[in-house]
């Protein structure tokens, strides 16, 4: 164990050195966008304070400043209006960029979202630029794995380069995946060490690991399904308690959402090689599924198995998509599967109407492979 500990320290040291020396510069990207607020974020090689000029026109008119001297620039824009386009200019000594974005909708206003699964910092994800632009989504939710080695900042740099056509203009919410925890050599570090870069780069709500996002008539809930890299009491105790509270609030008769959509990394039901992780998934299903069923969760989005699939069990739609890495062989029998494809990279596009949600698996060439409709 001592040898392993020393080696891990050395690896961390090496990583820190490379992170300091590499010309990392990415963004801007949008985090924690709500109906009334947003964070404009970017990452530079050197720490500094950050400024964002913003407003309803390209002339801006308002200024927000974060005086913290950091490489991870995160500037809060408060007091925004729902479903409104804002223009902004992000400024730090080594960085200037402009963009515009929409705040999330309220009420039952129609909106679209895009779900990413298995980006894995594959260049192929850049090929979805036109499809995502055509969808004109209010938010993108990412079930992860976003990159191969979450502790290597250069991979996040590459990822944001591939999605640079849309990330400055669309709210981006990511979940934790198993590769979030990986060092450069593929070894994961457990617990908070493993999520170090994710939490620095992302600016998600709450504890940034499990959180909710309300957009119009839909409540999105992000949860961490990688309990096996964590203190299991934290993930299966604290997080599950939190999840139940959120689901109770979402069904208590006060401003209840029409739809509840959960996004997480590991699929609960899949035709993939889940037999490799048989007990991990058995435990996950035992802890999460009763809550999904009891509180009427409508849609559970995931990645991990490198395929596109729609399953339906006890009224809950389970969907996984793969826009980057794809092609795991089928393995586990999934009696709830209604559609599965392990050949074509897809994003899942959701169109959310007042009383229905249409989800489509869309390829990089714009073909719709399969659609299903979720009703409350």
């Amino acid at each position: 164990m001592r040898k392993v500990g020393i080696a891990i320290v050395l690896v961390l040291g090496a990583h820190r050195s490379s992170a300091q020396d590499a010309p990392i510069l990415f963004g801007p990207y949008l985090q924690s966008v709500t109906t009334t607020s947003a964070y404009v974020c970017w990452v530079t090689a050197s720490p500094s304070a950050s400024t964002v000029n913003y407003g309803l026109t390209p002339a801006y008119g308002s200024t927000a400043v974060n005086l913290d001297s950091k490489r991870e620039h995160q500037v809060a824009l408060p007091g925004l209006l729902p479903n409104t386009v804002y223009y902004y200019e992000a400024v730090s000594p080594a960085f200037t960029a402009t963009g515009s974005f929409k705040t999330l909708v309220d009420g039952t206003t129609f909106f679209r979202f895009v779900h990413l699964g298995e980006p894995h910092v594959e260049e192929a994800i850049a090929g979805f630029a036109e499809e995502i632009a055509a969808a004109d989504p209010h938010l993108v939710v990412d079930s992860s794995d976003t990159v191969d080695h979450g502790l290597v900042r250069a991979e996040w740099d590459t990822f944001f380069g591939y999605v640079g056509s849309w990330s400055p203009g669309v709210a981006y919410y990511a979940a934790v995946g198993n590769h979030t925890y990986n060092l450069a050599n593929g070894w994961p570090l457990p617990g908070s060490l493993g999520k170090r870069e994710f939490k620095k780069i992302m600016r998600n709500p709450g504890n940034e690991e499990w959180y909710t996002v309300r957009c119009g008539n839909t409540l999105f809930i992000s949860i961490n399904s990688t309990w096996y890299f964590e203190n299991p009491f934290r993930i299966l105790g604290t997080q599950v308690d939190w999840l139940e509270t959120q689901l109770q609030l979402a069904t208590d008769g006060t401003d209840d959402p029409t739809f509840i959509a959960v996004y997480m990394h590991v699929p609960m039901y899949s035709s993939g090689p889940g037999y490799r992780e048989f007990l991990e998934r058995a435990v996950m299903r035992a802890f999460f599924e009763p809550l999904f069923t009891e509180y009427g969760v409508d849609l559970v989005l995931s990645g991990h198995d490198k395929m596109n699939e729609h399953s339906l069990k006890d009224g809950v739609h389970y969907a996984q998509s793969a826009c980057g890495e794809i092609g795991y062989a089928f393995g586990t029998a999934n009696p709830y599967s209604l559609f599965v494809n392990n050949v074509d990279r897809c994003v899942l596009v959701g169109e959310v109407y007042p009383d229905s949600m249409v989800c489509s698996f869309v390829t990089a060439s714009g073909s719709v492979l399969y659609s299903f409709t979720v009703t409350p």
Partner: protein
Amino acid sequence: MRRILPAVALLVVACAWGLRDTATRRGHPAPADRPGYSEAGVVSHASAPEIAPTDCGGRDAGCGPADLKRRLFEETDLRKKWAIVCRLATMPETEHLFADPADRRRLDAIIEEVRLAIKRGELKEAQEEP
């Protein structure tokens, strides 16, 4: 020199470990090799449940998947049952161990027992216990 040393260290570590964890890089960790688990294979996170190696006869003897399954069904202490489930979850391809529907039902019952105990606060992190 200070810049070179970490890179050399990384190279050494990568050579030692780089190939042994291919499965992890493809998205499915080789669980027995995961860090965060002790040499006895027990979850070694400070707050995770533990079973002593002697509980299953030592690292190499009696600690295989089939032994752990047997112990899981013989064990009466819920904390130890949970530790064994966590241990088995670190092992690849254990589905065949529970292929018998009766075994699967017993396993599901144990997981449900653990779930309810955690929910009720009867099973929690060791350091929080009185």
